[in-house]
């Protein structure tokens, strides 16, 4: 195994990233577990400026939604962009530096959080580094657009479309983000816009980019319909940015925006249907019969579909007031993130032979891990949804009686309803941590000790752009 720290091309860079990726996932799962532990057992655990639920929650958000997300985004762009455009990346040194800078600046936010915990905002970013992030993502987007202009494939494959969309919305989310609010409704509005553009759209698009690559190239199947792929692309692009506002139903946000959010969330059924039909019909023609690989992709798809269903359910007029301002939104937020992590695992397994020229063998460890990952993630999402409904019901029951239960004694009643699911989530976080550890082990084992096989080389279509 030879990894170049200064890579010459995207293949070399992918080598570095595939090696580091499982470690970043492991870091994210560890902080998530620690956060859950401090939520349920803060009274028996040692606490200080860093070891407390409030700080760990923000840190977990920074690591999962910003650092890990940017890492996955850059990895996917580096590998998939050149392949789907039919050419090696142009101005590669600049591309490499921008990608590295983007990951570096998100990591810097993690380091900065320990140095000055009060600087870290609710969703992870610090206002100090926000401007540099905007510049770097802007540069990254510019380089991607240059590559699009110089493409050699006659048409743009769905994976590239989704990647471009993800980077555009990453930039939008950073432009939206603010650290200080003067008006309460601005806080709700901006938080909601940031959640929708950064997490809902960002994670979904990177997920769909890898997903379309794996169900066609990975499974060696024939893509059923490009039209359905395009419907899901434009559908999610127009609908997802609006879906966050409904979780602030009944607050100081204007009513019209809450109503629009509710109806556009219901419309998510259109791209979801397109995706389900495209997936099932495409997978029916698969030639890759490796069951673990298929199971991992299926689990990722189930989690993504479930997240969409939760979005749709929470838009039903009788349900929205119950789940608004409750933990229900967490299951949606984490649903998108978990589906991305789940699809990442078969992606890495698929790339190990291609990048390193080492065979990846699906043994008992990988089979066990696939089921463990899938079940722990699905159970976590369901429990978060249950917590949202329980607390929402409790608050509404109190409110209908003229006594909101978010204060004092009422809060204790609510807590008694949700503390058991929280403890179960802690246990599932532990299982998830274990799964990510096993994933790291499998990947490193294959990279270091796998039998030698033919690796992929950087290929480029001869001639000019066909269009």
């Amino acid at each position, binding site marked *: 195994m030879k990894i170049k720290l200064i890579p010459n091309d995207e293949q070399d860079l992918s080598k570095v990233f595939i090696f580091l990726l499982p470690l970043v996932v492991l870091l994210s799962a560890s902080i998530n577990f620690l956060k859950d532990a401090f939520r349920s057992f803060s009274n028996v655990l040692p606490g200080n400026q860093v070891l407390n639920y409030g700080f760990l929650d923000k840190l977990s958000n920074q690591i999962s939604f910003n650092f890990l997300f940017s890492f996955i985004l850059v990895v996917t762009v580096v590998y998939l962009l050149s392949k789907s455009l039919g050419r090696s990346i142009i101005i590669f040194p600049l591309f490499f530096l921008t990608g590295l800078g983007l990951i570096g600046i998100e990591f810097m936010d993690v380091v900065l959080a320990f140095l000055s915990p009060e600087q870290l905002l609710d969703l992870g970013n610090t206002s100090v580094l926000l401007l540099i992030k905007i510049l770097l993502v802007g540069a990254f987007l510019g380089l991607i657009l240059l590559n699009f202009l110089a493409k050699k494939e006659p*048409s743009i494959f769905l994976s590239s479309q989704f990647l471009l969309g993800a980077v555009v919305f990453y930039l939008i989310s950073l432009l939206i983000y603010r650290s200080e609010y003067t008006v*309460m409704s601005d806080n709700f509005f901006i938080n909601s816009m940031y959640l929708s553009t950064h997490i809902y759209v960002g994670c979904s698009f990177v997920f769909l980019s890898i997903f379309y690559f794996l169900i066609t190239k990975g499974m060696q199947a024939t893509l059923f319909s490009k039209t*359905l792929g395009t419907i899901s692309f434009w559908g999610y692009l127009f609908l997802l940015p609006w879906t966050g506002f409904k979780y602030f139903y009944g607050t*100081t946000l204007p009513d019209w925006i809450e109503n629009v959010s509710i109806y556009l969330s219901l419309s998510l059924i259109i791209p979801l249907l397109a995706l389900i039909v495209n997936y099932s019909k495409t997978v029916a023609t698969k030639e890759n019969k490796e069951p673990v690989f298929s199971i991992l992709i299926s689990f990722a798809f189930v989690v993504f579909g479930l997240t969409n269903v939760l979005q749709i359910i929470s838009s039903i007029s009788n349900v929205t007031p119950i789940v608004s*301002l409750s933990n229900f939104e967490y299951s949606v937020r984490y649903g998108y993130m978990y589906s991305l992590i789940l699809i990442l695992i078969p992606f890495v397994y698929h790339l190990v032979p291609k990048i390193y020229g080492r065979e990846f063998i699906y043994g008992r460890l990988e089979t066990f891990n696939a089921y463990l990952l899938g079940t722990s993630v699905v159970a976590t999402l369901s429990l978060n949804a249950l917590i949202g409904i329980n607390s929402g019901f409790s608050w509404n029951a109190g409110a209908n*009686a*003229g006594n*909101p239960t978010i204060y004092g004694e009422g809060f204790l009643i609510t807590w008694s309803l949700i503390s058991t699911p929280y403890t179960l989530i802690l246990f599932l976080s532990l299982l998830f941590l274990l799964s990510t550890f096993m994933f790291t082990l499998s990947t490193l084992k294959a990279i270091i000790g796998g039998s030698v096989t033919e690796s992929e080389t950087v290929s*480029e279509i001869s001639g000019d752009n066909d269009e």
Partner: protein
Amino acid sequence: MSELLAKVAEILGAPETLVQRSAEARAEASGNTVEEVLQSWAGGEAIAASAPTAEASVTEEAPVEEVVAEEAPVEEVKEEVVAEEVPVAKSVTTKVETVIKKVSMANNTMGIKLNTETTLPRWLNFSFMIIPVFILIGMINTSGAQECGVNGILDVDRKSQQTVNCDGSPFEGKGVASTNAVNYVAVGQQVYSGAAACAGCHGANGGGGVGPSFIGGALYKTFPTCADHAKWIQLGSAGWQAEVGAAYGAEDTISIGGMPGFQGKLTEEELMAVVVFERVVFGGGNTEEVLIDCGLLETEEEEENIEAVSTTP
């Protein structure tokens, strides 16, 4: 073999993988080897040895024997046999074209195939048409909810956070006497959205949320009089339970705790202002009547009485 495959692929203008698959399928169906099939496609002999064709030529050979006696027509019959071979080759080509038509390349670099003869299920097409229509109807129906001016709802200036009329002009309270120094509605609105954060639970437009709704007559149903309303805000549910009892309001709603008491947190004026604001803006009450009910404005009769008392020696 691979050269032959490449040649055929070039002739047919199709990817090698597809030609290989088609040749394999053809070979399996015809009982020939893949190489023979490829040779026939490359311009060599047609697959005369294929099972069904062989049978056909055997049956067609029978008349040849009959004609053998007359030597001359033999050649004609031979021509007929040759003529029979042409459609076989044609059908092979047509079949190959059909297979190739169905699949094209979605991405050449990655070798991702795309089904080009996809017909979407009818139910899916129907769903794509009908769902947006329902969504649109729903959006239109709800777009008019809680508009400015309905149920006495006023607008809020986003920058100053002051209550304003629907046209953006400053709101000074309906029928507030000019002698009244305090604009209770405007102050109440500020308290409602700011200091007391009532809006967080009861909604910016009083539509409810975590806390109960005030609009649609709900407020006056629970608190027909200003005094009860003010006392509830002052004491909160805990204070009410201790001082008054388990039930509150005109409908004897059972208090189970939750509403914070604002005594000491708001000044007397702020507390009354928020009561007036809620009763006027969300309850739809007349400002003057509300102020009178709350004891913040004296009626003309009272004023006259006061004047009479003050002028009495």
